[in-house]
């Protein structure tokens, strides 16, 4: 019998107690995994935002329109590789409750700016550009409603109206866009701005925002200054920022998600620290005589210390690893329904590593005091007690 067998046997000598502690550790790590995955989903878009992409919005607020003429003026700015524009449509399908993320865009430039994120077959892109009343939809949108290429779908707007009356536009699906990278949500409908602008009853010749790509990230600052000063003191002043900064500010509007995650995970860990710490102390105390016997047999203090710490770390891993695995399953199960708010909801390798580090830390913290006590225990006291 080696030391590890002894550690394992010690841990499970009271099977129920060990099982209960494993359950409580499992739950804490499950909460950690799910919440860390949720937090990651909110921030991964920011972290992965292309460094060379800028967003230009109306300085009053990004919901205020910009004149369409800005598109060509920004295009001419030195250091800008590509510009495109988008207009929020406020779409829904059949019932206002069925929100559909939908934008009126300029197809060729939009798909160019997002070429690293969007995967669309070239013939479908050509068909989209050719047919003014067509639309492309994201893969998850296609799956959600069972739409296929060639289908004609009515998308209503909760903002705009058709010049001919009514709030609904019919689009032929020209293509289906797949995501090239994990954090891109494909729950969207994109259709042609030109067609939208001609048919809407108000807001003609205005766009929502510009997305531009610079030649190199080093040029960002200069491009930002040039654009914003170009429109200063006009009726529509602009505010240009990196996509990342824009995304960070937007997420911050929902509230301090990081703080909430930290507090809840913190509460879960304080709970298991106390429960496991006290139980470890109790079970080592119960074994005082045995430790005395081990020492009589010639086990060194250091070896005893390692064995007790090994027991508490083993316990933390036995609870923590399945906890993380369950968290991973939960994120997979919920990913589809949370795709629109948290597209990259997952227990990533980073989170798993952090989790394992936390397990070892938990094992060390809960085991250290009983382990030190056991190490320092004098044989005479140990055998005299109880």
């Amino acid at each position: 019998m080696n030391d590890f067998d002894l550690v394992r046997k010690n841990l499970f000598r009271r099977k129920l107690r060990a099982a209960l502690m494993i359950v409580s550790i499992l739950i804490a790590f499950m909460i950690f995994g799910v919440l860390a995955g949720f937090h990651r989903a909110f921030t991964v878009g920011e972290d992965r935002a292309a460094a060379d992409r800028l967003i230009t919005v109306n300085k009053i607020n990004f919901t205020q329109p910009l004149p369409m003429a800005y598109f060509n003026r920004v295009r001419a700015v030195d250091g800008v590789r590509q510009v495109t524009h988008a207009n929020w449509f406020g779409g829904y399908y059949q019932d206002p409750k069925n929100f559909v993320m939908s934008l009126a865009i300029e197809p060729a430039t939009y798909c160019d700016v997002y070429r690293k994120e969007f995967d669309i077959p070239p013939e479908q892109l050509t068909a989209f550009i050719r047919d003014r009343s067509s639309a492309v939809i994201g893969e998850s949108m296609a799956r959600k409603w069972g739409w296929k290429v060639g289908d004609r779908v009515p998308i209503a707007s909760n903002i705009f109206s058709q010049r001919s009356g009514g709030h609904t536009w019919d689009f032929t699906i020209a293509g289906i866009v797949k995501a090239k990278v994990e954090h891109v949500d494909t729950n969207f409908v994109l259709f042609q701005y030109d067609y939208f602008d001609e048919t809407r009853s108000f807001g003609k010749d205005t766009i929502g925002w510009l997305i531009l790509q610079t030649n190199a990230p080093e040029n960002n600052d200069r491009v930002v200054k040039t654009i914003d000063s170009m429109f200063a003191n006009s009726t529509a002043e602009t505010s240009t920022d990196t996509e990342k900064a824009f995304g960070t500010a937007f997420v911050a509007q929902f509230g301090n998600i990081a703080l909430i995650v930290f507090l809840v995970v913190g509460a879960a860990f304080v709970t298991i620290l106390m429960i496991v710490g006290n139980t470890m102390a109790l079970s080592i105390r119960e074994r005082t005589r045995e430790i005395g016997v081990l020492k009589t047999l010639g086990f060194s203090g250091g070896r005893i210390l390692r064995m007790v710490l090994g027991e508490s770390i083993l316990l933390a891993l036995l609870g923590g690893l399945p906890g993380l695995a369950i968290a991973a399953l939960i994120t997979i199960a919920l990913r589809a329904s949370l795709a629109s708010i948290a597209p990259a909801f997952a227990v990533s390798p980073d989170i798993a590593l952090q989790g394992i580090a936390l397990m070892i830390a938990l094992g060390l913290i809960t085991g250290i005091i009983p382990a030190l006590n056991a190490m320092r225990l004098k044989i005479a006291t140990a055998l005299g007690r109880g």
Partner: protein
Amino acid sequence: MRSLLLQVIAVTSINLKSIAQRRWLSLSTVIAIALVVIVLLAFLAMANGFQRTIAGAGADDVAIVLRAGSQAEINSTVARDQVRLIEDGPGIARGADGKPLISPELYLVVDGLKRSTRTKANLPLRGIGEQGAALRKGIAVTAGRMFNRGSNEVVVGKALLREFEGFDLGSTVSFGATRWTVVGVFDAGGSVFESEIWADLNVVQSLFNRNNFVQTVRARLTGPAALNELKSYSDNDPRLKLDVKSEAAYFAEQASQTSDLIQKLGWPLAIAMALGALAGALNTMYSSVAARATEIATLRAIGFGGFPAFVGTLVESLSLAAIGGLLGAAATYLIFDGITASTLGGNFTQVVFDFKLSPWLIGEGVALALIVGLIGGLFPALRAARLPIVAGLNPT
């Protein structure tokens, strides 16, 4: 019967007095349960505070008219000639001068800087008609004065002033190329209107190039029952066909989306944590039974029944849970009740609200704690009741 009762009382008091011997394990159970209750109540207080701020803003006898299907004020558009048709509609109360009590309004989003994070946030700038302030209950200008009609002046809600920078009384704010002076601060009884900036409708229309339309129309009804008259009037006129809702119903819808979401996050988290705490409670109570095995067996040997041992263990567990639950509720009250937060509401603008506990919520928290205590005590209590006397008297 009486002797059974006496036995139960005797054993229960022994149980409760023996808690001190397992103080650390018992304390960890109490704190674990308290933390579960804190997490649950913090989420519920957040949802409740948000709900009260928005749902409390609406009146039954005020109708709000929006574009059909628009769902929120920010999306809606109502044309100038439609406003005129609504003015002539049935069921609308009239002032002493005979004019209808209505307020056509524009709802625009402007940027503000959040004090806590120093990041840009969406704030609502509402252009209100002459009757705008009068159509809302409990509006009081607490500093400065109301804006003058026709001038670039704004009044700001008290909550907005507290959470966002640059709106102090007397200061000048710019929204794009337009300049405005903050001339007053208003109180709206803690409702969502306190998160808004108000200005004269006509000035907002002309400075933001929106001369031909407004977004919503609010109208004072002659009574809550008049809503249906106005509704059928709108439905039957092809030039209107607008959504007519009571302001109370509109705000109730707005509130429910976000507060439901917060509750949907809070409950599963609290239940998961409760399962963790339950494992702790079971552990503590099994240890309690094991530590008193000799004592329980002795009592059984001198004629006590199994039932008092069962009750004693269960009461010990429930007491620990109740202490944990109350501790958690008290801590939530001290830490979270009344703290201010803001998030994006249904109109895509910041809503400032306070976390708000209520007796009902505290009841839910304590109930969850007691469920943990009940299940955590039940199985150890059964073990205590069934403990074989001989085994208990021969400790190994």
